[in-house]
Each structure stands twice: as C-alpha cells, then as structure tokens.
C-alpha cells in the first residue's frame, strides 16, 4: 500500500505544538522554583520578575508601556477636599525652618503647589508616637501637580544628625554572588533603633549602574550617575559619582541609579529626555515613582507618588527642599516607605495609603534591596 501522509498543514501544527510544549516544559523548570520561592510576592509579580530576568525585559517593558499609555490619567478633574493623614502630631516647624530647641534644625513646612491649600497640606508631622522635640522623621503630603489636582505626593524628612542609613540586600536583588547578603529583612537586633524603611533603586540588571556593598564593588561604578553613598563614619550623601571604578577608602556602601534628577539645587535639564531614564518604563510615563533627595543641611528627603513623571517627581523633591536627588525604584509593586510609630518596628505604616505593599514588608524577607533608617546609637527615641 502506498504511503499516505497527513496534510502538511496538520503536520506543521503538530511540529509547532511539540516544540512549544518542549519549550514550556523547560521554562517551567526555571519558573516554578522562582515563583514558589518568592516569599513576599504574588505569583503574577514574581512571574513578571522571572520573565524580566530571563531575557524578557524588553517584552515586559513594552507591555508595561502599552498598559500605562492605555491607562494614562486625564488632566484636571474634581479637586480634593482632604489629604490622607500621615504621622501622629504636628512637628510645629512653621515656616521659619528652625525647630523649637536651641541649635535644632527642623525643615520649614512645604509651600503647596496648589492654592488654596488643604488642611495639613505641606505641614510636617512627627512619625513616631512618643518622640521628643527633635523628631528623627517627619512626614507630610501635598498635591504634586497643578495639572492633576487629585495626585498626592508623600514626603519624608530624615534628620541626618540623629539617624544613620543602612543598605540592606534583598533575597534576590542584588543577584548572586554577594558576600554577607543577610536575611533580606531588618535584622531583629536592629529593630529597637528602627525609624523607617524604604525601597532601593532599579535592579542591577536593568539599571546599568554600580553598587558598592560593605566596601567592596558588587557592580562596577559608573561616573556621572546619581549615587547614595554611606560612609564608614555613618555619614551619608547623594552625589554624582566621579570616583571611577575604585572604591574610596571611606565608602561603606554606594548605590547608583540613573543620572541625578536634581543637582546643586537645579532640576536636571534632561528630565524630558527619554532614553536616559532607564530601559524599562520611559521618563514621561505616569507611574508610581520614588526618589531620595538631600537638603542643604545634609538631611535626607524621600518622596513617592502615583502618576509621576521623572520631572514631576523631581519637582516634588525640589519643592520639599532637596538640593540633590536620585530617582529610586518605580511602579506600584516596588515603591514603599514605611515608618514605625514605636521602637522595635511596632505599628508600621505606609507613607501613603495607596501604597499597596504591606507595611510589614521589610520585617520579613523581601526579594528586593532596600534602605533602613536607624537611630544613631545612644540617641533617645
């Protein structure tokens, strides 16, 4: 009997199906451990992260950009009548910029962008329940963009003279190999002095930037990139990195992310230049964004808000008083600022109610790296 083959179309489909099932099986061998091992992430987010780190970054970024373009907010809209409540009591800084105690600096309240101002808008509030006249952490909110009057930015001010900043690696970021990674959470022994925690920058794989951890280069530093630097003395700064590939002897950690968004009091003139601001979501896409600045007195300022561009985020930080600033991580999955009302990491609360990640986030092992703010040793709460 003559050989009778099935139609070519059906055979091509069969070959394609076998090839796809084979590829899916191999991919599943890598995907399954990644999603079951993620302790702080849902299956969706960890799958996206897995795809991003396994060659799919351009695909994820493109889909993200389409999604954000489709969900772009409209200008205008009804005005807000109140702002989310942050902190516990008013810090009483007024507009003078000096605190009540002799030689104590407290920042001036932020002059809102939109008038008339709402009750409590731009007014600094203490984050701790039982802090004295020199609160280590102040919080405020204000409307971030006159064209979008419903958007509210949350800003935190951190007293550098009373606190120290630590860079804490997550379980998966920075990637292996990393010496002395730690537990990926705030160590229990440090929680007595814990004031706040907040998200780090972009993952090393997508940031094209460097990292120094415990005085050693984990990823080659890049000149001209904004860098949060923690010194061995406990001091900190936000600089434009110019030390090349070597590690200065006094540097304990240095985390880079994109060019500075504010430098020497001025906005980066290239804030509207797309490719400079990361290879994932571009600079003009309105998403959750976060940034870290430093004021003229060397105190840190963190800001985060939904529906921000790089430029609007920089303007929020500048309005709050930052003279140099770096953009940190973006997207709702990664932006977190958590303050603790009581010592021991008790009563954690997010800076903004829309931040959907749990306020317990950094008290349990997290995938991503983050910063922890501790009271300096011997400082009263």
């Amino acid at each position, binding site marked *: 009997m003559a*050989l009778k083959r099935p139609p070519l179309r059906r055979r091509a489909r069969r070959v*394609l*199906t*076998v090839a796809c099932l*084979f590829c899916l099986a*191999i991919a599943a061998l*890598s*995907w399954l451990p990644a999603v079951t091992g993620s302790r702080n992430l849902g299956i969706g987010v960890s799958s996206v992260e897995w*795809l991003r780190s*396994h060659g799919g970054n351009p695909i994820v970024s493109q889909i993200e950009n389409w999604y954000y373009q489709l969900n772009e907010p409209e200008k205008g809209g009804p005005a807000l009548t109140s702002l989310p409540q942050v902190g516990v009591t008013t810090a009483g800084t007024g507009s003078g910029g000096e605190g009540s105690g002799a030689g104590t600096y407290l920042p001036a309240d932020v002059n809102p962008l939109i008038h008339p101002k709402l009750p409590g808008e731009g007014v600094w509030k203490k984050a701790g329940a039982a802090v004295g006249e020199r609160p280590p952490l102040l919080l405020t909110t204000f409307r971030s963009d006159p064209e979008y009057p419903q958007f509210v930015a949350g800003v935190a001010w951190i007293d550098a003279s009373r606190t120290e900043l630590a860079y804490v690696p997550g379980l998966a970021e920075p990637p292996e190999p990393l010496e002395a990674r730690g537990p990926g959470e705030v160590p229990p022994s440090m929680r007595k002095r814990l004031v706040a925690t907040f998200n780090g920058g972009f993952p090393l794989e997508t940031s094209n930037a460097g990292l120094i951890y415990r005085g050693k280069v984990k990823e080659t530093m890049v000149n001209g990139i904004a860098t949060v630097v923690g010194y061995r003395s406990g001091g900190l700064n936000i600089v434009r990195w110019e030390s090349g590939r070597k590690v200065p002897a006094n540097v304990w950690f240095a985390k880079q992310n994109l060019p500075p968004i504010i430098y020497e009091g001025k906005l980066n003139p290239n804030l509207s230049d797309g490719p400079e601001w990361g290879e994932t979501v571009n600079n003009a896409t309105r998403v959750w964004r976060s940034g870290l600045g430093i004021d003229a007195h060397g105190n840190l300022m963190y800001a985060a808000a939904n529906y921000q561009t790089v430029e609007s985020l920089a303007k929020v930080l500048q309005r709050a008083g930052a003279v140099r600033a770096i953009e940190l991580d973006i997207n709702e999955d990664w932006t977190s600022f958590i303050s603790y009302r009581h010592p021991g990491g008790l009563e954690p609360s997010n800076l903004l109610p829309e931040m959907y990640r749990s306020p317990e986030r950094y008290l349990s092992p997290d995938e991503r790296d983050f910063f922890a703010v501790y009271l300096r040793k011997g400082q009263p709460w």
Partner: protein
Amino acid sequence: MRLPRNISPAAAERRSLLFDVVLGLLVGIFAIIIAAGIGVVGFFALLCIIAVIPWYLLDRRSHRRRRRHRRVNSR
C-alpha cells in the same frame, strides 16, 4: 538502508508522528539556543499554545460536522 515504502496507513501515521515529534524537539532546542533567555522562549511558547488550542478545537468541530454530514448522506 531505506525505510519500507509499503506499510499500513496506521504504521505510516505512527512514522510521521515520530518524525514530527523529533523535528518539534529539534525546533524547541534550536529556539532555546538562539533566544535571549528561557523566559522569552517560555513566553512565546505559551502564546503559540494559546493560539494552537482553538485551531485544534475548530478542526475537531469541522471534522465531526463532516463525519455527521457523510453519515446523513449515506442513509
């Protein structure tokens, strides 16, 4: 050595199935080798499977319809 040409339709079907499976595995291996990462391969493989499933279902439905049609005509 040449494969026998005069074989039953069932044997021919089994032979082409084996050939297609081997070819499919080779295509899969090739895709994994040239792709930027296993994530990309998995992503596109999933899309292909999602596209192929309705194709199979449609084929099956039209096959059934044809068979029913033939049965009605033969009565």
